[in-house]
């Protein structure tokens, strides 16, 4: 069994306390994870500035070359992991074993992280709109069009309070080191694997150890991250999002309530878009905030719901190492049962129909975990209580709603795929501030364009564009 220590600016710290990371099926311990206390993290923040300094000492091209090397090591290398080593296969199996995610999905997430790391230069160019990296590094400079600009870094480190159940979220923080900002990571108790493996790859590729800290720990570590770092990301539920709303220091990520909206002009051809809908609901076991949880149309909703149910309703809970496994397990005792109880209670409402009922029970209870099989619910109108729900498994409602009321009714939506050619409606969708990412056309909600911001532009989160005036002589030196 691996013993994985706390990392204090790259230095292993053997805590007196450990938490066991267990296999979700057998209960066997997979790793002993050292536990930090919040005070350690707070004290270490004395050296936060050093984290950025050591990264700024590396020329930007060189830094990106090391990131590309790290990408390869992350995907293919056997890397140090605590008191042992970890191959890519070990990683996928360990992540699957502790999170309930099928092994092939863990591997797909590896490929996704690898893609982001290897394309970092292009991505940063897109996110900064072509700004020279030297301007972000130095804090000021002259744009290619001859205008003086300044981007002031708002924090030498970014704190991350990472989730246990969503190994897909890690792409969000991968650009931080390339932006020459340090990392303070609090991994989820069941998913230490990605933060530690990416960090190991970074170190092997020559990223300075002083740039990254990892603090697994208990209840006081998350708040310590948020109170100690001037910029942090946290992952949680709706309550977490509400708690940090309007706080410029915290970017809170939670449910997406992503949706597919079918326009009146195309809805009669809905079978053409069935695959897009199914893929958006079902991919990656429906765990992501980018998975569709609501499909809205003005007519044919019952047929659409029945067709999706026919496709995904029969999906069975398969063992995690089965290449056909499409469902992740709920590893927290009682979680799946509680979610299903809640969903079932909502079926009683008038206008709500459970469309996957004929494909057998949805709640599958195993000895140490449980699964929820894909669930499709038809809502006769948008007032149904369940219409805007989102759950961490393939779950969608199909809601009947007139097109001219949709924008008013859908609520906060991380990703909206609007399948329509109605330019007037597209204009209204484009202007809707409660939609974050807008896809116009039959684009699955799960398809990300890495060259565009996701849930806010990380460059804008970390850097403030402000005025900066100086003498022409000084500017000439940095042109």
């Amino acid at each position, binding site marked *: 069994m691996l013993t994985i220590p706390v990392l204090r600016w790259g230095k292993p710290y053997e805590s007196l306390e450990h938490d066991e990371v267990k296999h979700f099926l057998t209960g066997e311990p997979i790793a002993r994870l050292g536990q930090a206390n919040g005070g350690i993290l707070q004290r270490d923040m004395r050296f936060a500035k050093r984290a950025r300094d050591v990264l700024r000492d590396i020329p930007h091209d060189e830094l990106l070359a090391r990131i590309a090397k790290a990408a390869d090591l992350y995907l293919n290398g056997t890397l140090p992991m605590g008191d042992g080593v970890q191959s890519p296969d070990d990683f996928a199996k360990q992540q699957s074993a502790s999170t309930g995610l099928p092994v092939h999905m863990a591997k797909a997430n590896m490929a996704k992280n690898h893609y982001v790391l290897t394309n970092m230069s292009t991505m940063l160019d897109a996110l900064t709109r072509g700004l020279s990296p030297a301007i972000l590094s130095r804090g000021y400079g002259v744009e290619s069009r001859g205008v003086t600009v300044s981007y002031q870094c708002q924090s030498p480190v970014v704190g991350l309070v990472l989730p246990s159940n969503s190994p897909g979220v890690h792409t969000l923080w991968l650009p931080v080191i390339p932006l020459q900002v340090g990392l303070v990571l609090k991994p989820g108790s069941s998913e230490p694997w990605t933060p530690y493996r990416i960090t190991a790859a970074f170190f092997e590729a020559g990223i300075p150890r002083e740039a990254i800290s990892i603090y697994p720990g208990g209840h006081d570590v998350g*708040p310590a991250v948020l109170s100690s770092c001037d910029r942090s990301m946290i992952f949680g539920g709706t309550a977490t999002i509400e708690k940090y709303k309007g706080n410029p220091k915290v970017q809170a990520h939670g449910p997406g309530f992503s949706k597919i909206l079918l326009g009146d002009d195309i809805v009669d051809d809905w079978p053409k878009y069935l695959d897009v809908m199914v893929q958006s609901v079902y991919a990656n076991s429906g765990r992501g905030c980018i998975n569709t949880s609501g499909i809205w149309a003005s007519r044919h909703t019952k047929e659409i719901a029945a067709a999706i149910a026919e496709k995904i309703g029969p999906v069975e809970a398969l063992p995690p190492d089965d290449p056909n496994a499409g469902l992740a397990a709920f590893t927290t005792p009682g979680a799946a049962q509680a979610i299903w109880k809640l969903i079932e209670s909502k079926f009683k409402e008038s206008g709500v129909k459970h469309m996957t009922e004929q494909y057998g029970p949805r709640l599958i209870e195993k000895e140490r975990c449980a699964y929820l099989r894909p669930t499709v619910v038809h809502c006769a109108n948008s007032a149904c209580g369940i219409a805007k729900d989102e759950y961490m498994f393939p779950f969608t409602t199909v809601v009947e709603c007139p097109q001219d009321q949709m924008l008013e009714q859908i609520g906060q939506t991380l990703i909206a795929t609007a399948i329509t050619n109605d330019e007037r409606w597209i204009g209204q969708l484009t202007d809707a501030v409660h939609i974050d990412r807008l896809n116009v056309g039959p684009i699955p909600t799960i398809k990300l364009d890495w060259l565009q911001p996701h849930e806010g532009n990380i460059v804008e989160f970390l850097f403030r564009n402000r005025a900066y005036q100086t003498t022409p002589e000084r500017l000439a030196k940095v042109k």
Partner: protein
Amino acid sequence: MSQSASAVSPEVQAKAKAARERLDAHTYETVQWHFHPTTGCQFWLEYAKNELKFDPLKEIKTYDDLKKFPEFQDEWLRGGPIRRWVPQKLMDKPLYVFETGGTTGVPKSRVSHDDWRTDYSNFSETLPDDKFPRGANWLMLGPSGPRRLRLAVEHLAQVRGGICFCVDLDPRWVIKLIKKGWMEHLEEYKKHCIDQALTILGANHNVQCMFTTPKLLESLCQALEKQGKTLKDVGIKGIFSGGTEFTPQWTRFVTEEYLDGVFMTPTYGNTLMGLACSKPVTAADGYKISYYAPQPRACTEVVEFNDYNTTVGYGQTGRVKLTTLTKELFVPGFMERDEGEREMPFDKYPWDGVSGVRPFHELAEATTVGVY
């Protein structure tokens, strides 16, 4: 790992036997006092008459006999009239009421005449004079208001010949801030308390000893570090502290990184018990923290989770059960919101202790710990 009673030396075994006999005698005496019609308090006299199926005056002769009492309900401590808990012989004495909890609803309360002074006078005798110098002044940086601790620490300072400086701290407001998610306000309130402490420590008052909580100790050390100072630099020699977040890891962290040789002793206590002292904490012993109640005035047991009348084996885990046996208060078998491991008697405290104290796992989710 399970320990064996045979690991205790014959000397300690003899002391443990004597301590047990003292506990039995003290139990008998305390029950006689609280249940006698001329001395007992209204609550227990009525309870014996209306609820108990046995006569405590006749049937409680030893500590083990207390198992005959049904489980003590902490709800009984909420609400009044408060004088129902006062033994008749103490009715005309000056009385205090101390409260715990109370963020929402009616807090639990305990009425007291002199117990709090006795408990802390006794505790004073356990403190090393070189670390808590006689005549030195104290800083009380912990919960104030209707809590016993504020007065008790002041008394402790006084019995040791010092004067106690205090800072106001309302834990009920702190818990509300956490529940509301007002973390910025929480930070500001903490800073407000620490600023006052820094002012006192920097005002040439000869403060060498202090009580504080783990969270506030960390914050105070951080604030001093920002000024380029340590606790030692501002004259502190000894600290006593308490709380369930007082883990071996936390103790090691502050010892290695903040205390710079300043002595710190963990304690475990509450308004009902008084103060349990700690066996000396050392790096060699992995910073293990074991607490021993002030027997015979209070006694802790570590009991099975599914049978509160059965103690677990040494080294085994169970829930902490507390019995208070003073002339001012009789509480048989109060189930604490904590769990831990049963510890062996040793020379200084020849009775059972408890280590690894942490929130009781069945209640842990609902427990807000380390708030101040």
